[in-house]
């Protein structure tokens, strides 16, 4: 009964640990694997959608969340009381701290999870075949990797709401998110010429293209990503410093504030960056790394941050 709940996703990536120990060649294969994100997640989401919720005849009461985004969603849709444990990276909302464990979402320990006696394990990316292992010991799981579009993100919230028995609250949350985002977008008058931006993931200039989920947020405002010029097969390219400086983006969004200590000041101090128009006219926007990489209810905050950055830019143009 429980076993058929488990999604039939086959893990397509190597376990992270082995790659870590491996040689440089192996390291690159992981980078290459990261580049495959797009195909991976599309495939998984597609096989995922229909999900029955008859966990022992009712909604699950002992949920373990191994994904920070889904932890945020669970609490937002009123399923917080059913959550018995969250993974080490789940740091929001504050209530989830009470059930914080040091279980790693990347290297999940099946025994440690089973000791929590969960009736549902919520998994983001299944790197290590965890769903299969759990199903072998009769524990249900729900796998849902990063979405590619806003609609997929809303769909995930709705799906998770159904799985945990809070379909109505989930529908309310997504409706409110849709309304809020639409309101933010309509409040802003987009300039006639597309505003260019650079979204920084770390201080070695890893970035995103417009094809990513993060990129789709900027698309809402008709902004143009400078990294779209990359023709590689990855949507997470490492840009060269020369390129960024020569593109002179209108706005610089820093999503490496928590990880790498990026600030508007130390960006200005980088060689060659002090003359960039975004730096000169104060259009360097520091984001919250977490908000800018998760697709839960705080997505609205992210959209708002982008909108604020855009309106500051429009004002700075006079």
């Amino acid at each position: 009964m429980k076993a058929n709940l488990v999604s039939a996703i086959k893990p397509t990536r190597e376990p992270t640990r082995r790659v870590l120990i491996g040689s440089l060649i192996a390291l690159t294969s992981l980078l290459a694997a990261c580049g495959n994100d797009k195909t991976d997640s599309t495939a998984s989401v597609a096989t995922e959608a229909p999900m029955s919720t008859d966990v022992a005849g009712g909604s699950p009461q002992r949920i373990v969340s191994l994904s920070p985004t889904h932890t945020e969603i669970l609490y937002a849709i009123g399923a917080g009381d059913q959550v018995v444990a969250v993974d080490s990276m789940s740091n929001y909302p504050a209530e989830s701290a009470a059930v914080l464990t040091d279980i790693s979402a990347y290297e999940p320990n099946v025994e440690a999870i089973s000791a929590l006696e969960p009736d549902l394990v919520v998994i983001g990316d299944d790197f290590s075949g965890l769903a299969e292992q759990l199903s072998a010991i009769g524990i249900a799981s729900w796998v849902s990797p990063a979405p590619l579009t806003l609609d997929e993100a809303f769909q995930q919230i709705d799906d998770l709401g159904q799985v945990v028995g809070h379909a109505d609250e989930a529908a309310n949350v997504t409706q409110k998110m849709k309304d809020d985002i639409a309101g933010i977008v309509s409040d802003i008058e987009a300039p006639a010429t597309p505003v260019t931006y650079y979204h920084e993931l770390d201080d070695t200039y890893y970035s995103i293209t417009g094809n990513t989920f993060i990129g789709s947020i900027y698309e809402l405002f008709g902004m143009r990503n400078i990294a779209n010029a990359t023709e590689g097969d990855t949507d997470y390219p490492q840009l060269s410093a020369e390129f960024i400086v020569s593109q002179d983006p209108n706005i610089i969004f820093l999503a490496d504030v928590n990880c790498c200590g990026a600030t508007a000041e130390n960006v200005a101090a980088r060689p060659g960056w002090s003359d960039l128009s975004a730096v000169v006219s104060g259009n360097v926007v520091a984001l919250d790394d977490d908000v800018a990489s998760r697709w839960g209810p705080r997505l609205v905050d992210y959209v708002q941050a982008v909108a604020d950055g855009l309106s500051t830019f429009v004002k700075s143009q006079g």
Partner: protein
Amino acid sequence: MLAEQVRDSERSWWVPAACIMLAVAFLFGAMVGPAGPAWWRVPAELLNHLPFIHIKTGATELQSTVLWQIRMPRVVLAGIVGSMLSIAGASYQGVFRNPLVDPYLLGVAGGAGLGATVIIVAGRASSSSWPVDPLPIAAFVGGLIAVMITYSVGAAFGAAKSSATLVLAGVAVTSLATAIQTFMLQRNTDVVRQVYSWILGRLSTATWHDVRLVLPYVVVSTGVLLWHRRLLDVLRVGDDEAQSLGARVDRIRLTVVIAATLGTAAVVSVSGLIGFVGIVVPHLVRLLAGSSYRRILPLTVLLGAAFLIVADIPGRILSDPAETPIGVVTAFLGAPFFIIVLRSRQGASR
């Protein structure tokens, strides 16, 4: 003796040839990139930075900035790192009389990687207000500590004159450091990408500050190693024989190892781990110019710099405007190139 001199004169043209190669590599490295001035404007742009020279090159200010603030530090740093890793590799191979040895042998890489991981895990965000980036310092210190442990372990158990104990101790220390690093990464999966990009080489974010940071160590280290090049030739006959010739083998070995390690740790701290250079370049030099360290060491300095400058070019343009990590390129280009040279050399039967 006479034969040796004849061969010397035959091969003396290698030093000027290597100088020319380095100059060409440097110029080529300065000309190629995704942005910046057109390639034919680059030489004049560079001359402008010499005192009392003002040439109107027609490049925009932005292009000059890209060339001088972004590309040149990268080219110069690649040269410094390449020459340091190469001469350190050649010296290690000399003192250990083992052709498979590379400058990371005694645990510099493992220790530096661990140091970098520790500082990244501890959170560089808290250091954003610091005047200096703690990452290179942590990597440098980690590398030195690892080698110190290796050496003390090797010395404690290796009372015999064999250097094998030292090499094995290096292997053990490297494994230990890597294990701790892996454990820390596993506990802090959010920093995995940052540690990767450090491991895969950081030439892409090189600054003049990095160059100033490592240059003193590299100059001192290279100077000491070049000073010892004749003694390395003496060591080639074996420890006992060298001893009987009056060489103080243990002291030479210790000095060379310290100098090579110091320089390697310094460059690793700013460039990350760039594999293969320390093995390929010394062996290429041996194949081309014979086995005397008097010739090998100066040539590795020149050709090592040229090799890494050239190896960094595909990283810039292969997936322009994205980057390909230098560590990948060196191994990817270096390995087949080396195999070809090895084959053709054996075919020619020296």
